[in-house]
């Protein structure tokens, strides 16, 4: 009887160990959660759908627009450089580009997290060493990111943006080209949700546009099977047959 109890106890311990081993957060040598790997783009469990390839923000989660603030919605004006700059291989920018339906790779070490998105090969190099935002830069499409740790959550704050499209919602309604202002600050919270997915929260703080910051939670599924091919090349200029949306006949 005693042997049976001991055997069950040992077996239980072994199961517990195995379970912990399979669910343990991967960590870098300095003990921080390790997000290195290839993922699907951020997806929302619910929210608005888009007639496009990308995830779009859920309007119901947004704060009210600021009275007298900068216009949030723009209508197409017939100029393709305004209506869809990517027709000219202009950048999607951030956060829009992060939501495109392509693979995303995280490469991490002690001092940096590098996020590379397959769409337009968007690359964000995020310092993790506690440095402040850079000063004196011109406004940018992808902004200026810095990261820090809050426990097992990596927090990235990105500022210094150009006024640019917030997301791809205008593919659903061409009269609702959602814009962010140059006052935008995006805060990302990244943490392991489970062994197969990362929880990814974006907080949009745009005081020229909204009355208050607002957030949306996404999930990025880990795709270790995509690591074998890595990210595919994406050179927009390679064969952009439709510059400005005008595709010449063959």
């Amino acid at each position, binding site marked *: 009887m005693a042997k049976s109890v001991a055997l069950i106890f040992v077996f239980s311990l072994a199961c517990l160990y195995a379970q912990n081993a399979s669910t343990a957060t991967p960590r870098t040598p300095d003990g921080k959660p390790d997000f290195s790997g290839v993922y699907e783009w951020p997806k929302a469990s619910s929210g608005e759908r888009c*007639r*496009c*390839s*990308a995830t779009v923000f859920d309007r119901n989660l947004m704060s009210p627009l600021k009275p007298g603030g900068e216009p949030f919605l723009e209508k*197409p004006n017939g100029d*393709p450089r305004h*209506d*869809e700059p*990517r*027709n000219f*291989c202009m950048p999607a920018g951030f956060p829009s580009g992060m939501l*495109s*339906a*392509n*693979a995303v790779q995280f490469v991490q070490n002690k001092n940096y997290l590098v996020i590379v998105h*397959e*769409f337009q090969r968007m690359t964000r190099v995020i310092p993790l060493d506690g440095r402040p935002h850079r000063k004196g830069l011109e406004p940018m499409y992808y902004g200026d990111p810095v990261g820090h740790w809050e426990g097992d959550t990596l927090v990235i704050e990105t500022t210094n943006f150009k006024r640019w499209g917030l997301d*791809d919602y205008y*593919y659903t309604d*061409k009269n609702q080209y959602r814009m962010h202002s140059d006052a935008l600050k995006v805060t990302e919270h990244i943490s392991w949700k489970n062994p197969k997915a990362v929880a990814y929260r974006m907080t949009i703080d745009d005081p020229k546009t909204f009355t208050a910051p607002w957030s949306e939670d996404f999930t990025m599924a880990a795709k270790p099977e*995509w690591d074998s*091919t890595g*990210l*595919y*090349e*994406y*050179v*927009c200029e*390679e*064969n*952009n*047959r*439709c510059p400005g*949306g*005008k*595709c010449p*006949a*063959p």
Partner: protein
Amino acid sequence: MKLRSFVLWLAFASLSALPLLAHHSFSAEYDDSKPVKVTGVVTKVEWQNPHIWFYVDSKDEAGKVTHWAFSGGAPGQLMRRGIYKEVIQPGMTVVVDGFRAKDGSTASAEDRIPEGKK
């Protein structure tokens, strides 16, 4: 050829076309109220970014040949879904569902097939 056509159709049917239209504006260029179905022979394939293009010659009952060009997603998006350039090669007979372009001279992707141009 019939089998290849079926395989091609199946491959593209497994896609959702709209998710492939990230780069240029579907609504600006194409009319989703004007679907077309084209059967013809692939003459050329450009498996390149930002969108693949393939060209199809179709022949009507009178023997008149019409040249079409169809566009799809980025090669990476397609390959990520297990669709490689071997699925469509010159000489294949294919059936493509698309939408006409707004200028009347083109056709484009519907929900299953990449967009195209005549």
